[in-house]
């Protein structure tokens, strides 16, 4: 590999419930992203003409998020017109895919400075608004045994023997850790408040965390995917897993990732670019990997992706100091731990998407800032970020604090 892909900064917006009436529902996705880009620019007095490309994940790129929101935001932010922009979609991994792609652009030596990240306004552009053949085209859905991911998450729990209490306990821990981290200000360095056109703050800090959540309080929530399963999706899923008697529907709004609005941006560049900007790198992208697993259960990719990325990096699981596994559903993170045997003390130490929310296209890039902040705080070296992905894919990235 010719060049190191250095991470010069990683920032994000705070997250708030992705529903009308929530603070960020006032903010257009293009402004959410443009505001963050300019926040990043202002932190470093960045000469935007030096940026080759802006790569942004967005999972619902229609309506306000349509027509290449990356370039649109670059224009809206008033960046130099030489800066390109591209929007990509690898489902929930889009934000991390953007980071990985940016790292490859730098590593290849073909580009010098790239901003990677993602944006998702789930309040304004609801999940699923973009449709797609996988779920909507009958023959395709039938041929690929499409099942909504919540059913897959429940199937994982069933197969792994995670009870309702187990997954709720996991969710409570996510809440506790996130609340403690927010309280201690661990996120403050990377969170750029969202402001309106007058410079008045609309949202200062993460708004989705629910401190005080208990297993008792979660026990009142009804399973979210029981009805869908009962409509026949359980049968489709079980046709692939004939040894399972029935699916235990354990997931609900309280132990699944939150629907939120948010955006993230990571500044990735070559050593030379950093020197030109007068910036010290915070981290380095060590290796990246994507893989695919059985698509009907869909959410078991993180383990295999992790092994793949470790192998590429020539590392072992023990060398990783911190793991960030996206808490799409409690069972996903729990299955990841089981697959990798990584110690819980190293996993999602500041909570995850169950507590803070999962703005689909942005989350992967947000996790880069989360893990880098914590590596710095703990003065540790290696972090691994991984997410489960639609279509059974998995993605993983190893970063090194420098």
């Amino acid at each position, binding site marked *: 590999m010719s060049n190191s892909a250095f991470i010069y900064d990683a920032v994000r917006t705070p997250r708030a419930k992705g529903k*009308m*009436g929530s603070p960020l*529902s*006032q903010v*257009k996705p293009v402004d959410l992203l443009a505001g963050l880009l300019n926040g990043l620019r202002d932190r470093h007095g960045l000469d935007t003409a030096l940026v080759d490309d802006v790569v942004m994940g967005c999972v619902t790129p229609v*309506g*306000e998020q349509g027509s290449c929101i990356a370039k649109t935001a670059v224009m809206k932010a008033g960046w130099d017109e030489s800066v390109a922009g591209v929007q990509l979609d690898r489902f929930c991994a889009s934000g991390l895919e953007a980071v990985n792609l940016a790292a490859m652009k730098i590593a290849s030596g073909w580009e010098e400075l790239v901003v990677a990240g993602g944006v998702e306004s789930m*309040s*304004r552009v609801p999940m699923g608004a973009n449709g797609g053949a996988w779920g909507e085209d009958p023959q395709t859905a039938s041929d690929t045994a499409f099942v909504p991911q919540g059913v897959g998450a429940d199937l994982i729990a069933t197969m792994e023997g995670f009870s309702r209490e187990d997954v709720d306990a996991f969710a409570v821990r996510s809440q506790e850790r996130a609340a403690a981290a927010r309280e201690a200000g661990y996120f403050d360095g990377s969170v750029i408040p969202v402001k*309106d*056109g*007058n*410079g*008045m703050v609309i949202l200062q800090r993460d708004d989705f965390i629910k401190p005080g959540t208990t297993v008792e309080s979660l026990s009142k929530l009804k399973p979210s995917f029981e009805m869908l399963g009962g409509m026949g999706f359980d049968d489709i899923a079980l046709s692939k897993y004939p040894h399972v008697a029935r699916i235990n529907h354990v997931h609900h709004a309280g132990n699944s990732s939150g629907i939120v609005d948010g955006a993230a941006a990571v500044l990735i560049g070559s050593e030379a670019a950093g020197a030109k900007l007068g910036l010290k790198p915070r981290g380095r992208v060590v290796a990246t990997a994507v893989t695919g697993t059985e698509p009907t259960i869909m959410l078991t990719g993180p383990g295999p992706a992790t092994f793949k990325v470790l192998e590429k990096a020539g590392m072992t699981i023990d060398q990783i100091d911190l793991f960030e596994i996206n808490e799409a559903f409690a069972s996903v993170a729990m299955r990841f731990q089981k697959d990798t045997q990584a110690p819980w003390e190293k996993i999602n130490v500041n909570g995850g998407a169950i507590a803070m929310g999962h703005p689909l296209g942005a989350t992967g890039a947000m996790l880069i800032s989360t893990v880098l902040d914590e590596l710095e705080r703990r003065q540790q070296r290696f972090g691994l970020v991984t997410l489960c992905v639609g279509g059974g894919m998995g993605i993983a990235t190893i970063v090194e604090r420098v």
Partner: protein
Amino acid sequence: MTGTFNYEKDSDNIVTVTMDMSGPVNAMNDEYVALMGETIDRLEAERESIAGVVLTSAKSSFFAGGDIKSMLSLKPGEGEAEMFEMNLKIKGMLRRMEKLGRPVVAAINGAALGGGYEICLACHHRVALDSKAVQVGLPEVSLGLLPGGGGIVRMVNKFGVERAIMPLLEGTRFNAKKALEAGLVEELADDVPSMISKAKAWIKANPEAMNPWDVKGFKIPGGNAKNPKITQMLQGANPMLFQKTRGLVPAPVKILDVIADALRVDFDTAMEIEARVFVGLVTTPVAKNLMSFFLQMNQVNGGGSRPAGIEKTAVQKVGILGAGMMGQGIAYVSAMAGIEVILKDISQDAADKGKAYSDTLLTKRVARGRMTEEKKASVLGLITPTDNADLLEGCDLIIEAVFENVDLKHKITEELQGKLAENGVWGSNTSTLPITLLAEPAKRPENFIGIHFFSPVDKMPLVEIITGEQTSDETLARAFDYAQQIRKTPIVVNDSRGFFTSRVFATYIEEGAQLIEEGVDPVLIENLGRAVGMPVGPLAVQDEVSQQLAVKVSETNRELDERLGDKFAGETASYRIASKMLNEYGRGGRAHGGGYYDYPEGGEKQLWSELYSLYHKPEVDLPVNDIKDRLLFRQIVESLRCYEENVVNQVADANIGSIMGIGFPPHTGGVLQYVNTYGLKAFATRLAELESRYGERFAAPQVLLDKAEKGETFA
């Protein structure tokens, strides 16, 4: 005196709330917040015992809207948060009113514009008095603002984007009948008692009233942002706006933006967005300029420059000397105001032609359904065309509108001033000749005054009144009153070569000509003239004025210089170019064989190709911003000089005169106001740059430097 919202419950348990604030009108201010707050609290508390609410006003108007003066004083970065909170508070109260669970009806007894109509929109039903006093609408855009009291959001939700868009973007004011047609009010009533009883009848018939957007399952009429037809319409609205504003006025785009968001997000979220965007607009320079224009228009039309203590007069019989383009226009506007007109020319034929002009205009009005045949006949009947000077006998005002020639004007004054009624006023319509000079033969110079009309007189809203050295205050007052009688806006200036408007106007043409001589591409000059907001480029303006006239005026000015021992004329680029075009190429202007442009029959005008071989230097590459500033600032510098020289004494007169008389861009708020929002120091600095690059004509006048030093503005 403290204001009240009078609260009265009748035997049917219908509460009538009568707004009677302490000022002359009900307005959106702290007092309103307090009174409305108390009223809503009480309505909510007594909800179970009331059947509905009629909201009306004790004033002659219903409700006047926002407090422009306080908005004008808000500086960027100061007080936005307070204004935002205040806005949400006002909205919150209206929201509580519309969600009271009891029908609320607005009984609109007078004007309900801006905030006034926004209150009406938050009611469930609107009954308006069928009276001239009633005007409804959301004219905020004309102040550079947007309807921030829920106006955009409720208009969109009530009417759908297709019907809401024009009233919001154009700020249309509707009279009672038009408001009914457009659906802005649902009922009209002939008098106040029947208005109140109609309001109460509606309450009884609709005990459960809710606004549609608060009913579950509500859909915006015509569709929301998910409808491809709607998104297409919004996409098309932007370029249409740009054609009008050239991107110089932020409010219309912001309004469109809030409309778009109101189609994307829920009602209450849209309300908060509207508040944020409103607050952002208030402190923009353009909003300040437009608000200041509004206040200064009131100042000017309220007689700010009219001498005080002189009783208002009305002209009964006006004599107009010369039935040419100006005379016939003056005859028309005078007759339209009900004044008897004697239109005199050398021959009966010429005078008849002058009257025929009015006939043509009136016939058009009738054809458009804006006038009856009877009314037309009566207006025409007021105009007597004649070649007989005796008919002028008894005119209380004579306006001489002959060619711009001192001797001719003198001669006519001598001949005809005896026809004036006792103490009648003699007005000379001139755009360049000094009034004091013209007044020389006058027997009563104190009754002699300049009345500068703009062409075409029937369309141009401004009149520039010029006082000569001996003109009396009474004469000025009478000329002022006449201007208002014919529904023009009068500005008052002192006698000086070119007065105010012509002097400033000439600099625009002259700067265009200088750019031509420097070799700048004429296309660029024209486009940048429009880009700064002038209605047309300086070259096209010159063609309209005509090279022929330009040459003539220059010659007249030289003669005047000799006569007065003055140095006004000077050799100008526009004169050099115009005389070359006229004498060597026979190009005397648009109406005289073309000018800077060719005017092909039935085709679009095109720049005269020879212009390039004569003047264009491709190697000349001036910064675009310099060209723009030269075209705009040259006029401002001249205005500052006029102000400094007391040619114009009132800032308002300079601002209003520039916008209404010579097409200075409205978003600037006028020639002097623009300097206020640009910043006096910054403006002086920029002038220094232009001066060093392009010459002394950009030197900052002392009045600017002094005021900048003292931290004052032009007010």
